[in-house]
């Protein structure tokens, strides 16, 4: 849990909410003081978390030590699923693909979302309209997005079949080649999720005090230097938050793969969540699928913990040091 709530890591003596999220302190003055939140205030959330996260996860751990096809009772088989997991070439391929997908998703989405977000935080003409347009993909369901792109990229019946010959590439086909299909997954998920991260960066950039830029301007810094020396450092926490969301989110891309490529060609886009689906819901090996699922949970948790530690996110009090 400490990953998600930097304020609860014990290093901070008081319960000061992160300066980033408190709207300039005005809220504190409003109204008489109400009682401090007790531990039981968290009860409803905890109950939901227990029912929908802890309990299912416990069941998954239990199932991972059994063999079960959905009929009769699960049969306890000890650590067989886990030894199989370690030696399964399909799992090895899926893990490598998943890691590559996470890294490339992050590398593609972060710069674009950051630049768009900072741009959207400004006061340019048409900014509001364009921001709204950029935001649209986020409103579509993943399934709809995947279906649209599948139709667009169909090498025989899609627009690509018409455009290909015009640009001198008659056989243009992005879904039949492993590397290209993988690139399509990275692209489509980026297209879909950049708006969310753009929004985070927009909010983050809006929080940067204008006085910093004014000071920089007086010192003779251009826009590029102001971006490099003020905007980026001030967005450190936002970058961490967005990166954790991106990486952990990319570990669960599933619907896009299912609809767009079906894990293919061959197994070139069979990432871990899709493999889990195939094993669990198509070959009815719920025990082994549970082992895969739990591995995914552990890896995702570990990755986000490591990222938070490495970036010093948890130790940071405020992005506005010296202000």
């Amino acid at each position: 849990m400490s990953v998600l709530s930097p304020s609860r890591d014990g290093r901070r003596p008081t319960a000061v909410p992160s300066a980033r999220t408190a709207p300039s302190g005005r809220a504190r003055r409003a109204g008489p003081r109400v009682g401090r939140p007790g531990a039981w205030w968290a009860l409803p959330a905890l109950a939901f978390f227990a029912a929908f996260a802890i309990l299912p996860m416990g069941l998954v751990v239990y199932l991972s030590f059994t063999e079960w096809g959905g009929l009769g009772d699960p049969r306890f088989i000890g650590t067989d699923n886990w030894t199989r997991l370690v030696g399964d070439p399909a799992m090895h391929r899926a893990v490598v693909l998943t890691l590559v997908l996470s890294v490339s998703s992050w590398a593609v989405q972060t710069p674009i979302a950051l630049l768009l977000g900072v741009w959207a935080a400004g006061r340019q003409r048409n900014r509001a309209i364009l921001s709204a347009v950029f935001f649209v993909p986020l409103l579509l369901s993943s399934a709809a997005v995947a279906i649209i792109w599948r139709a667009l990229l169909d090498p025989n019946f899609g627009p690509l079949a018409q455009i290909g010959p015009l640009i001198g590439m008659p056989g243009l086909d992005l879904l039949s080649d492993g590397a290209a299909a993988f690139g399509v997954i990275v692209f489509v998920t980026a297209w879909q999720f950049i708006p969310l991260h753009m929004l985070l960066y927009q909010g983050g950039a809006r929080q940067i005090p204008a006085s910093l830029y004014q000071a920089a301007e007086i010192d003779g810094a251009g826009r590029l230097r102001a971006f490099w020396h003020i905007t980026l450092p001030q967005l450190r926490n936002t970058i961490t938050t967005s990166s954790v969301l991106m990486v952990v989110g990319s570990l669960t891309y599933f619907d896009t793969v299912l609809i767009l490529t079906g894990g293919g060609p061959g197994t070139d886009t069979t990432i871990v969540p899709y493999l889990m689906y195939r094993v669990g819901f198509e070959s009815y090996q719920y025990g082994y699928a549970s082992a895969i699922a739990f591995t995914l949970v552990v890896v995702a948790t570990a990755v986000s913990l490591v990222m938070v530690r490495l970036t010093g996110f948890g130790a940071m009090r405020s992005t506005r040091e010296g202000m």
Partner: protein
Amino acid sequence: MTPPQRTGTAAALALLLMTATACGGSGSGSDSGDGELNVMMYQDTLAVVQHNAAERYNEGADVRAVIDEVPGDGYDDKLRTVMGSGEAPDVFFNWGGGSIEPYVEQDMLLSLDDALEQNPEMEEAFIPSVLDAGKIDGVQYGIPLRGTQPVMLFYNEQVFEEAGVEPPETWDDLLSLIDTFNEEGITPFALAGNTTWTQQMWLQYLVDRRGGHEVFQRIQGGDFEGWRDPAVLWAAETVQDLVDRGAFGDNFASVSYTEGGASALLAEGRAAMHLMGSWEYSTQLAEAPEFAEEHLGYTTFPEVPGGEGDPAAVVGNPTNYFSVTTEADSAAAVDFLKQTYTQEYVADMVENGEVPVTTNAEELLDNSPNPEFARYQYELVQEAPTFQLSWDQALPRTAAEPVLTEIDRLFNGQTTPEEFVDALAALQ
């Protein structure tokens, strides 16, 4: 925001499992003795035949047959769920073989051996090779309910005419046709590689023609060392050879069968041939009626060099079956099964374009929308010494899915024929 994301996958799985057992089966639940016979049916346009059968049955019986149609896409999953949660139907549609084996292992199905013994006309009603495919370990668990669906080689007659060539009779013919059509810029064989089981059809025929029916029978019997039969290796090498020759064009991996891609390529003349189940005819009739009636040709899969298998053998889905669960009122259920070979039922099937697997079907075939095609199919199946059920239906699902994945990898050149054989033999 983060906790639901990172636990999402696990939670989704577990929740699905919970809901699967909690609320599956509403609508098809049943108790024996409630005066209803619940029949779980695969939903498609042909199910009208079973609806009519239920109506006829209900006229004379104390027990009412109720047909519960389940959409085809999730049929297998839903069946598995209701069977696992004690809400089993009395009678249900299936593919025989591996599709019912897990239920047999759990003692959920009624042996129909007694029913056949007491009703000899039932056994005589069906083509023997097709009735046989409804057995598990020598015990009858399925009674045919539909038409037969052999896999055959469809072709576009117009394309063949324009190229001045004939459909292949030998393997050499087939190879030279690949070159001919490639020179013309036409894909020799439409292949919906995005729908994995279409690739499986090629291997099924290659193995059957090369090594004979016994090769896969051994595997189906549970001996996965059978994958090491030289015929399987040869078939895998041949597949890669065909891919390298450009038999399937460049982009087969992104063509889908369920979305109609491969069939459209054939109908539009962008592909010359298409290896597909006999339902391709109905698909074409619905999507490209003019092509289906005027230019859709069909022939058998050719002999292969050094082939030990009978060139008259077929692969595909012999038919679909009704099985009876142990929950059912068995007398009523067996009575209902007798519907599946009545004159009315068979006539109904023929009128809907199916080719029944009953022995009384032949004289009725003239009423088919396409009598010529119906007769061709009927004779193909009746003269076939063996009818291999599709591998993915013959094998239990735990093995079928990995086999399909390996076939997909083979077609996409991600594995060598030797690795392919090793991977299959290593499956449990």
